[in-house]
């Protein structure tokens, strides 16, 4: 809805004072000018974000140049990470990142959607809902270091017992599976919170119309509420995925930190973010440091690709 630049409102002939007429005209012109200034400010805010991300990309690239020059494409396909001999292959970490993040997402989606529906549809108000809502936000506030410690102290022994039951040959407890479990807990709030907001904002009259036609609660949710909130839910899911891709501390404590390619879900592995966090402060060679930053660049590019694909999927879903 654009209000185009047009002549100011001509005051009624009943107003006799020409000074006040001129004041009103000036005020109207000022407001119109302020409108375009404001619109420009909004655009600048949007532009700022793009510039920020481009700046980050630029810095990452310039700092990775020594390593790119040395290794080239072997960085992506190589499976050995040997800082002593300056052989850096990031493939096991790439695999670990993708495995843990997507597995965590798959595990968390039913729970996030359930919370979103619970708080948005069944119990939008009331003290009980407040408690649950605060609890969900609390999940996001727990420092990742605490998740790591709790994971190591509580979750890993449980997973180890599970692995022993399944007959895995080295039941360690740490591994890709444990990391995915912890991650899935940590990323619940993002999709849940956004989803809940979306569900609450579905207009009442749409739902009432459906009820009026004899739909059950489930059918209203399935056919009225959820379709309307698809874009918001997906945005929340993408946020959750983003969080999972970048999470460092908690993952690093329970993933087993092995640089060998993981053989199955229970094997120890490693993720790009956790390698960076683990080795950055102790990197004592320029090439080593720049290889770690190149890892950050790789993670950045992985996030870009996943987001572009995700957006295409969202577009297809919301325009069906």
């Amino acid at each position: 809805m654009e209000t185009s630049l047009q002549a100011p409102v001509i005051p009624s002939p009943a107003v006799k004072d020409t000074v006040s007429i001129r004041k009103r005209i000036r005020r109207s012109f000022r407001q119109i000018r302020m409108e375009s200034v404001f619109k420009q400010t909004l655009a600048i805010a949007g532009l700022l974000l793009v510039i920020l991300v481009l700046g980050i990309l630029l810095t990452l690239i310039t700092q990775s140049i020594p390593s790119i020059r040395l290794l080239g494409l072997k960085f992506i396909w190589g499976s050995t990470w040997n800082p002593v001999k300056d052989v850096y292959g990031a493939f096991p970490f790439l695999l670990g990142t993708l495995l843990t993040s997507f597995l965590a997402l798959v595990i968390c989606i039913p729970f996030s959607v359930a919370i979103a529906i619970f708080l948005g549809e069944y119990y939008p108000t009331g003290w009980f809902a407040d408690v649950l809502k605060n609890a969900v936000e609390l999940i996001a506030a727990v420092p990742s270091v605490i998740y790591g410690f709790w994971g190591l102290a509580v979750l890993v022994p449980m997973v180890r017992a599970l692995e022993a039951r399944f007959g895995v040959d080295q039941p360690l407890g740490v591994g890709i599976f444990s990391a995915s479990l912890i991650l899935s807990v940590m990323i619940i709030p993002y999709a849940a919170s956004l989803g809940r907001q979306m569900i609450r904002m579905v207009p009442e009259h749409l739902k009432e119309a459906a009820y009026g036609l004899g739909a059950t609660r489930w059918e209203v949710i399935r056919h009225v509420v959820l379709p309307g909130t698809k874009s918001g839910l997906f945005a929340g899911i993408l946020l959750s995925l983003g969080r999972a891709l970048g999470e460092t501390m908690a993952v690093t404590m329970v993933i087993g930190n092995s640089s060998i390619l993981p053989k199955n879900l229970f094997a120890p592995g490693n993720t790009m973010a956790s390698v960076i966090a683990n080795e950055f402060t102790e990197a004592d060679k320029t090439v080593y440091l720049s290889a770690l930053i190149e890892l950050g660049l790789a993670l950045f590019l992985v996030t870009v690709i996943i987001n572009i694909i995700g957006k295409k999927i969202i577009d297809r879903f919301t325009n069906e």
Partner: protein
Amino acid sequence: MRTDNIQYRIGKSKGFKILTFVLAFACMIPLAAILFFIIKAGITRINFHFLVNIPRPVGEKGGGIANALLGSVIIIALASFIAIPIGILAGVYLSENKKGRLAYWCRLSVDILQGIPSIVIGIIAYFWLVKPLGGFSAFSGSVALAIMMLPVIVRSTEETLKMLPPSLKEAAFALGMPFHRVIFKVIIPVGISGILSGVMLSIARITGETAPLLFTAFGNPYLSADVTAPMQSLPLLIFNYATSPYNDWHDLAWGASLILLIWVLFLNVFTKLISARWKVQL
């Protein structure tokens, strides 16, 4: 129409309700477990002295977390001051421009930003602010945290505002209100609960972040309010103490974690009060 068809549909609806309940509550189990873990470990250490003293070395009684508390408050306040206006404005921009090249790239940038690991953002802030200026500062830490807050704020603002009925905006325009008034006096107040929820989530997220502050705010064992100098923060303190070999430092870490959680809870309640006062009911 056969009655068992209705019964089946009602049964399905009830079943779905139960499923939703079960899943929603299942999420609370790990949270409860973690809270129990922290409370059991940390409650013994919290008293008045804990909150107002600065840390003492190993073996000395009476250490506290005052510098970390103050530091966290200052760093987070500064980060919010930077991130919230930009985030909300960008969110408004995106909700006003559903199509358009800049909007597409902006949306993509926001989602990418969310996926960048916190340590990479800390490294970036180091290269942009710490290295050129020759020193660590709370300000560079705040900038790093502000960058991390942006995606959640922008996305929640955008999605909330997109869901508002267009009739609201059209009515405001029809009354002759200029665009900025429409946004600030009509659109944002109606969407305030969603926007504030996004803000709260982003603050909750950065309250617990350690990695971005390692190379920016650096840490400080003394009480300091100087934003151009290194400053301590709760998550840094927790990390340093929890990974040390000494049990009394471990206890400090758990006590500090408990304080952190209480603080976030308090922020939540505070936000609800503000949102209730400002909210315009449709």
